[in-house]
């Protein structure tokens, strides 16, 4: 074939784009290009949602997350409760019992103090409900125009049982994929509030702490190895979480479209905007890779828990193609569920 010359030269990729933060492949590339080479160590290289540290015989889970959601208040939550749930969940999916949190606030000059008070109250309530406390924190103020009103970072510590080893590189062919409930609610609840896309929506964010559900699942497992790993599919949605695990474990995955629950209102919003629910953020769901023979038991335990009533087995881990997630559609045909490269944008096309 003749030398391929394109009329469109590559755009200069020297700036950070919003898409780098959306949990898709652009973000993954940033990780590989900038962060991993700099912080080269074995724990980080596992790329789990939390770091498991052995500290003088005690296994600690340590994680951090920053919350930049806009709008600050949305149906089903706010940046305060989200800041607790997000970090608690990153600990929980590592099998950790959350112990405590730190909370650092970056506040834009001019934010009404009443708004800050509301957020802090919500954060405190969410922490109390999760059985933990905010034990340390920080406050910074930035000039007007430098932030979306308020950014919060929370870091969390949890205790991991000695013999539990949940890690994204442990999925094996034959394992089952379990999803705790319907997808896409948080992302749609947020976007419904954004300027220019106002629609009345009955969709509430599913933001919730998952450590209770995880505890129930662990209690139901026949052996410590039965649950290979868990993820909470936040930014980038279910697709990103599964693609990451498939890549880390070098396995394939086969999903059944009909098995993945999506609420009618989420579906309606996705149809209108041209979104795929597989890529929309969740904040109160988890996906678990479990040994096939333990799947029924664990599923039953999930369904017995308030946060897992809609739990389903949505697919299987396969040997090949490694690193690729495939889907059997409602029509019985096959397609790939790819990693999204950036944000989903409302489209007319």
């Amino acid at each position, binding site marked *: *074939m*003749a*030398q*391929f*010359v*394109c*009329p*469109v*030269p*590559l*755009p*200069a*990729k020297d*700036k*950070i*784009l*919003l*898409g780098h933060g959306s949990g898709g*492949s*652009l973000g993954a*590339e940033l990780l590989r290009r900038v962060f991993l080479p700099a912080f080269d160590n074995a724990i980080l290289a596992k790329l789990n949602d939390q770091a498991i540290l052995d500290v003088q015989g005690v296994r600690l889970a340590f994680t951090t997350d920053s919350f930049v959601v806009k709008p600050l208040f949305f149906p089903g939550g706010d940046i305060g409760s989200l800041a607790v749930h997000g970090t608690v969940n990153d600990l929980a999916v590592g099998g950790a019992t959350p112990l405590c949190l730190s909370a650092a606030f970056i506040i834009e000059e001019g934010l009404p103090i009443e708004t800050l008070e509301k957020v802090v109250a919500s954060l405190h309530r969410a922490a109390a409900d999760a059985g933990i406390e905010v034990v340390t924190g920080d406050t910074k103020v930035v000039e007007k125009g430098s932030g979306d009103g308020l950014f919060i970072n929370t870091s969390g510590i949890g205790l991991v049982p000695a013999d539990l080893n949940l890690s994204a590189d442990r999925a094996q062919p034959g394992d089952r994929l379990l999803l705790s409930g319907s997808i896409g609610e948080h992302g749609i609840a947020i976007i419904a509030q954004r300027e*220019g*896309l106002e629609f009345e929506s009955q969709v509430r964010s599913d933001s919730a702490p998952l450590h209770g559900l995880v505890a129930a699942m662990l209690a139901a497992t026949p052996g410590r190895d039965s649950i290979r790993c868990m993820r909470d599919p936040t930014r980038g949605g279910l697709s990103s979480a599964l693609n990451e695990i498939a890549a880390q474990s070098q396995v394939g995955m086969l999903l059944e479209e009909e098995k993945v629950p999506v609420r*009618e209102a989420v*579906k*309606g919003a996705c*149809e*209108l*905007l*041209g979104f795929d629910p597989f890529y929309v953020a969740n904040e109160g769901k988890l996906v678990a890779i479990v040994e096939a023979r333990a799947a029924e038991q664990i599923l039953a335990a999930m369904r017995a828990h308030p946060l897992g009533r809609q739990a389903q087995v949505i697919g299987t881990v396969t040997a090949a*193609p490694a690193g*690729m997630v495939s889907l059997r*559609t*409602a*029509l*019985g*045909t*096959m*397609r*790939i569920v*790819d990693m999204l*490269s*950036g944000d989903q*944008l*409302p*489209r*007319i*096309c």
Partner: protein
Amino acid sequence: MKYVDEYRDARLARGLVAELARKVTRPWVLMEICGGQTHTLMRYGIDELIPSQIELVHGPGCPVCVTPLEIIDKAIYLAEQPNVTLVSYGDMLRVPGSHTDLLHVKAGGGDVRVAYSPMEALKAARALPERQIVFLGIGFETTAPANATAVWQARRQGLKNFSMLVSHVLVPPAIRMLLSSGRNRVQGFIAPGHVCTVMGYREYESLSQHFRVPIVVGGFEPVDLLEAISMLVAQLEQGRAEVENQYTRSVTRGGNLPAQKLMEEVFEVCDRKWRGIGLIPQSGLRLRAEYAAYDAEKVFELQDTTVQEPPECISAQVLQGLKKPMECAAFGKACTPERPLGAPMVSAEGACAAYYRYRRHAGAGN
């Protein structure tokens, strides 16, 4: 969802596939024009379901893909102006211009906003009188009425800070161009159901007669497309060449008259360059002279530039259905959604993006 789910029903799809298998006796090459239909075909694997004698090729039905480079560059130039707010449908943000794209301009501090509807750009113009609001008005005939309404309302409301950068394209001239080409292999067309919702399908009758090609107006769900394919194959097997309508729940022969009237009021037909294909005469829409005050080209005195696209670029062949994306040497290697070399890889509806997203590994078998 009513009127959506029924047309995704697996049993109906299987019934249609079985009927198709009974009807087809020879190989046929069919083309769908609309990017939305390409997306459905890929997403549901329709090409895997239908009998192998039927080959589906994809036409230039992605307005994002065919928007001329010059328009993207003009939009980028405007977005870089300090007093301009550029509002666009989300599809256009990642399409590469000559040097960069709107997303990068936004990253660099340009005021670039995404809108679901052009009316939001009007709202922005009213809310921000100190800024110049420019709306990037691209699309096929489906989107033209919405864009026309925005301009018409802007004039009615006497807005002084709103304009539109228009780059509309029309489907029938593109079909004519494809059918007139000596290299054309397409024997039957699925006409785009939402374009025809606006325009009706009278324009396709002369094409069908002149070139003796069957054309079926099709919807966008799997069952719609399977039914349209079935209707085309029936015509081909019977040696007929007519225009038929599958998407009867939305399309009538005359189309949407108020929409056409508004388009006629605001726009006029002009020659238009299609990216990757070249100039197709009388295949575009531009604002009429009476609306010059709302034409961003006039308001900002934008210069006409010409960007030469080298003949080696395969986008043209993909857009005309002459090559499949997987046959491109750069597909999946130098050219991916993160680093698109051409527009068909960027747009969600572009053939290359659809193949990349859904079908990458199946290329080995296809």
